[in-house]
């Protein structure tokens, strides 16, 4: 029987076989949202009517015998960073409160064309800046494994929705780890595709040279199915890669890593990494060896500088990107009483509309780009980026994919890092190098840490446009771990009673 705990692939099969309708499946998920979301707060907006309409449209087409895409009729949660026509889109910020985009992001157009049912918009750190979803102007999301803990960020809403069975699939975006780190701390799967693999048109920009949308799911195959729906060249994104989409579904089904070389990155896994996270990481390596892979150690010495470079490049780009929020064309406008100039209104609006982390990063970026400091800060960070890419090229000479723990720790308590931005930034230490080099990265569950019984993540990094390799390794590891555990990791999560 198909339930909200089925995988997206199982739901798709059941829909195709006619044993459930999309309206029934969508209603099951809307009911679950109703039951648990007052406790989890994964959603900022639930589009009940629209979702059921989309579901009904798919059911009608199926009855008519129309040719449908593999995920037609399967529900999905959309990160609130994506523009969806007519649906409130806030990016987790007060600045965009009440805004309804007049157009669809390319990712949304592709989802609609594939008949994927969009349930609603998920919570996130304001403008995707954060690692805990605590920076949302609309309150934090709670981790379904322990409601007193963070679900990761910035895409904590998408990951929590998946983990709480409110949706089988979700869209995230990843600038420094915002898909992968939430996946790690919620026991789910998240993929950052190669930069340029998925269109950024309609994705509200944070750091344009790093931002990339990708799939969130409960299994590697489900992520692959969604990946193939959203990926591909787009004329509306000049950085979109004009090349065939890697065959990730086929790769996820391969379940074989014989002869593959897996590089363990020496610099990611020492000091600062929780023992339980490292234990699960090493067990996962053993499982891959048993499956026939060869493990090699690789060194990427510049990785020690990646975090510092990221916190110059991302704020620099954000200070420029967020200049568009000037209260003139969309979003809120504060203090326009006829006596104030446009500039005064702009200053007041940005004071009110942006939260502390966004202001911090805009100021940092403005500093790093200002004359006199440009070469020392932004310029040096760009050079580090070159060195990081050289490290990756050398490592990929020795190994087909690289691996590390996704995040150094399991989910921490809400409020724990409130007054320490640097401690918060450390969450992304293992995920940031991937964005800086524009390559692919995946996180999948490696098990529960011994100390706290919370999920830990295993990261796989693949060369640019070879996303299929991380799906091949991820699918194989997932199958090996599943046979050890006997049941999916999420079956061990506490049952949410809801309110």
């Amino acid at each position, binding site marked *: 029987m198909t339930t909200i705990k089925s995988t997206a692939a199982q739901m798709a099969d059941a829909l195709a076989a006619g044993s459930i309708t999309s309206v029934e499946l969508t209603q099951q998920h809307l009911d679950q949202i109703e039951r648990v979301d007052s406790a989890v707060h994964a959603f900022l907006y639930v589009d009940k009517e629209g979702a059921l309409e989309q579901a009904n449209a798919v059911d009608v087409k199926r009855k008519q015998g129309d040719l449908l895409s593999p995920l037609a009729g399967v529900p999905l949660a959309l990160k609130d960073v994506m523009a969806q026509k007519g649906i409130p889109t806030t990016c987790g910020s007060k600045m965009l409160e009440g*805004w309804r*985009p007049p157009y669809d992001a390319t990712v949304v157009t592709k989802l609609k064309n594939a008949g994927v049912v969009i349930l609603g918009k998920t919570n996130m750190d304001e403008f995707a800046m954060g690692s805990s979803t605590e920076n949302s102007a609309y309150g934090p999301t709670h981790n379904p494994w322990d409601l007193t803990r963070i679900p990761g960020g910035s895409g904590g809403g998408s990951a929590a929705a998946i983990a709480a069975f409110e949706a089988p699939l979700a869209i995230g975006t990843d600038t420094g780890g915002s898909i992968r780190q939430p996946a790690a701390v919620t026991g789910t799967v998240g993929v950052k595709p190669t930069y340029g693999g998925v269109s950024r048109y309609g994705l509200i920009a944070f750091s344009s040279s790093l931002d990339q949308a990708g799939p969130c799911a409960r299994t590697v195959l489900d992520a692959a199915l969604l990946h193939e729906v959203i990926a591909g060249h787009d004329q509306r994104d000049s950085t979109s890669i004009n090349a065939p989409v890697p065959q990730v579904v086929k790769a996820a089904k391969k379940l074989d890593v014989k002869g593959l070389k897996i590089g363990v990155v020496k610099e990611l896994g020492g000091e600062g990494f929780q023992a339980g996270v490292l234990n699960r990481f090493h067990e996962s390596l053993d499982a891959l060896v048993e499956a026939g892979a060869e493990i090699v150690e690789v060194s990427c010495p510049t990785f020690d500088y990646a975090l*510092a470079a990221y916190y110059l490049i991302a704020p620099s780009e954000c200070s420029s990107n967020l200049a568009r929020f000037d209260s003139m064309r969309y979003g809120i406008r504060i203090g326009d009483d006829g006596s104030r100039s446009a500039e005064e209104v702009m200053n007041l609006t*940005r004071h009110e509309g942006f939260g502390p982390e966004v202001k911090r990063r805009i100021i940092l970026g403005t500093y790093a780009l200002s004359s006199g400091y440009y070469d020392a800060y932004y310029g040096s960070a760009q050079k580090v980026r070159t*060195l990081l890419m050289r490290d990756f090229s050398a490592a990929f000479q020795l190994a087909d994919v690289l691996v590390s723990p996704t995040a150094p720790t399991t989910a921490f308590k809400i409020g724990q890092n409130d007054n320490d931005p640097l401690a918060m930034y450390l969450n992304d230490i293992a995920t940031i190098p991937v964005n800086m080099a524009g390559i692919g990265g995946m996180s999948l569950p490696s098990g529960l840490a011994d100390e706290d019984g919370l999920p830990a993540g295993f990261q796989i990094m693949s060369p640019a446009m070879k996303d299929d390799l991380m799906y091949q390794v991820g699918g194989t590891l997932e199958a090996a771990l599943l046979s050890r555990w006997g049941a999916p990791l999420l079956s061990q999560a506490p049952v949410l009673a809801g309110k």
Partner: protein
Amino acid sequence: MAAISRDDVAHLAKLARIDMSDVELDHLAKEMDVILGAVARVQEVAGVDVPATSHPIPVNNVFRVDVVKPSLTSQEALSGAPAQSEDRFKVPQILGEE
């Protein structure tokens, strides 16, 4: 000595068009000093012979044929505007009084 003063932060906030309260400025000046201290280490490895990378893939101008395609109507484009008038965005005064 602090790498960045409270006055510097106030100037940056002005450049970034964000009003900031005294409390915000005090707090941010301290934080900025700590953050800049941490990120300045990029200079340790950024040698003169290392080229800068702005983008992970080569970025070139992308052109398309210059033909008119369907786009937003002016009402759609204005649909999120805080204020509008005569099919245009209405903004507060930009120049001072006559």
